[in-house]
């Protein structure tokens, strides 16, 4: 690493990993939630790319931001970012990302589900909160939403606390916080799954397939085939 690069690259903090877990979904199928690696980022970008044109429900902004965040992680331009993926039957069904702002504060970035009707997004968002609170041991996580749906789901339904003086790094809007208290109050109905995950199961997630982009756009945009 040359000197300039060292200046441009944020210093990373050593962080405990997210231990993979298995979640049995409504269908009886298992979804493995595990941390993604930097090397997997190009594959994730491929999934996100077609979504950056889908205006409905703000998929465009969420897709584009997640694209740039993951790319930032890959190119060493975001400090302490991580990404969790959900893999079911060898297929990528969703991803979430976030980062640490400091020792005590986590930043929730984005959540995307590519399979409908099995609450993949709910499980992944919960896993993200679990990581920040239970493994990174942070005090609270700053959360914002691009879409009204996200706002209703997290800010309102989980009664997140306002942080009037914290402009979230995603666009500078006022932050909401998921605190340790809120997390543990909701944990029973929010955070599920089994650990450890067998070596074999984990191995099945390593070379996951990604959803067909056309089908994906059709699904999320509601456009007729």
């Amino acid at each position: 690493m040359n000197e300039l690069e060292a200046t441009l690259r944020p210093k990373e903090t050593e962080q405990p990993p997210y231990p993979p877990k298995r979640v049995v979904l409504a269908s009886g199928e298992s979804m493995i939630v595990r941390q993604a690696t930097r090397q997997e980022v190009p594959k994730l970008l491929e999934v996100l790319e077609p979504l950056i044109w889908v205006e409905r429900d703000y998929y465009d902004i969420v897709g584009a931001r997640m694209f740039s965040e993951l790319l930032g992680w890959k190119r060493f331009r975001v400090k302490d970012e991580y990404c969790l993926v959900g893999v079911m039957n060898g297929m990528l069904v969703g991803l979430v990302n976030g980062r640490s702002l400091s020792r005590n504060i986590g930043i929730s970035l984005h959540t995307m589900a590519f399979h409908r009707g099995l609450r993949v997004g709910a499980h992944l968002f919960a896993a993200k909160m679990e990581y920040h609170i239970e493994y990174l041991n942070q005090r609270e996580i700053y959360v914002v939403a691009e879409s009204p749906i996200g706002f209703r789901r997290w800010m309102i339904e989980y009664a997140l606390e306002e942080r009037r003086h914290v402009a979230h790094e995603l666009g500078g809007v006022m932050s909401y916080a998921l605190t340790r208290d809120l997390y543990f109050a909701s944990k029973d109905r929010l955070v599920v799954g089994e650990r450890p995950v067998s070596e074999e199961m984990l191995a099945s997630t390593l070379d996951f397939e990604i959803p067909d982009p056309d089908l994906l756009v059709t699904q999320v945009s509601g456009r007729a085939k």
Partner: protein
Amino acid sequence: MRDVAIIAAGQTKFARTEWPLIDLLVEGARTALADVEIDESIIQAVVVANMGAGILNHQSGVASAVVDGLGLFPAHAELVENGPASGASAVKMAFLGIAAGYYDVVLVIGGEKMRAVNGWESTDFVATLTHPFAEYIYGVTLPSMAGLFARLYMEKYGITPEHLAMVAIKNHNNAMFNPEAHVQQRITMEGILHRPEAVVNNPIVADPLRMFDCCPVSDGAAGLVLCAAERAGQFTDKPVLIAGVGQATDTHVVHEREDPTDLKAVTLASEQAFKMARVGPDQVDVAELHDAFTILEIAESEHAGFFPKGEGHKALERGETQIGGKLPINPSGGLKARGHPVGATGIAQLVEITKQLRGDAGQRQVKKAKTGFTLNFGGFGNNVLAFVLKKT
């Protein structure tokens, strides 16, 4: 009264769509019209079933707009609203016009564009069918009403959450073979009820009802072409006869009913339809019931006369209501999995039975189906329609 036959049937895929209401209705009509070779200029009237054009889509005069979209001038056109039973009501109206001899060929098209609004607003929209001063203003919603009903019904007859789940699992399974169904997702008892993950997989919506006990919020349209039976042979060799039409109303306010677990209007409407068709419930080979909530499929299967009161869940347990069972119920996936665009539902039920009686239901075909039954449940059981269809 002249006999009336269904000569064409079709529906759009129920889903979340980007289509505006009128386009959706026109597409539903086109799907039905594609099911028969017909010179469209012989269509004398279009009856549209829809519940929410005003509230959801800020539109009126919808039936005229659909005629325009189809270029069917100067065909007569009306919209019929009867809450979630709008579809069946529209079919009844079209049926009467032909039975009277005033029309020969009528297009019926039902549809709803529900995902024009968010989930909270669509729940509020459906709640507008409750009593404005005795129910609505207290914040009652249809899921909450169904929750209260389920609690009472389960207690009275020993129904368990597993029974409700069985309805959902069966209907989700059926929908796997229905390409037009909104939800195509197998679910398991373990995943929705017994695993610890069930709290997230299948959260409680209105205790004892959970997410998978409730139908999704769907956009969609379904259509039928009705024709005087005496002329049906000109257009198809598989006309399906509308043999019985029944309907009944009950108190608007649910708590004014002597016994809230007694769905009187379901009983009366079914009896009327069976009487007119001159068949009994035991002669029915396949039925589409209004399972907006799983408990309703069980309760309706009893009130329609298929099983004695309190025995519906036992028949379900024994597998009698599965495809291949004694009386397959909701082979289409039902409202639970096909979806429930409210104005379309009553018509989609008839589309399914038409296909079943014709033998056109593909992998979900009920064998040797000759007599079919539909039940469209409006309000919270305060306006119910039943149809008996016969293979000809």
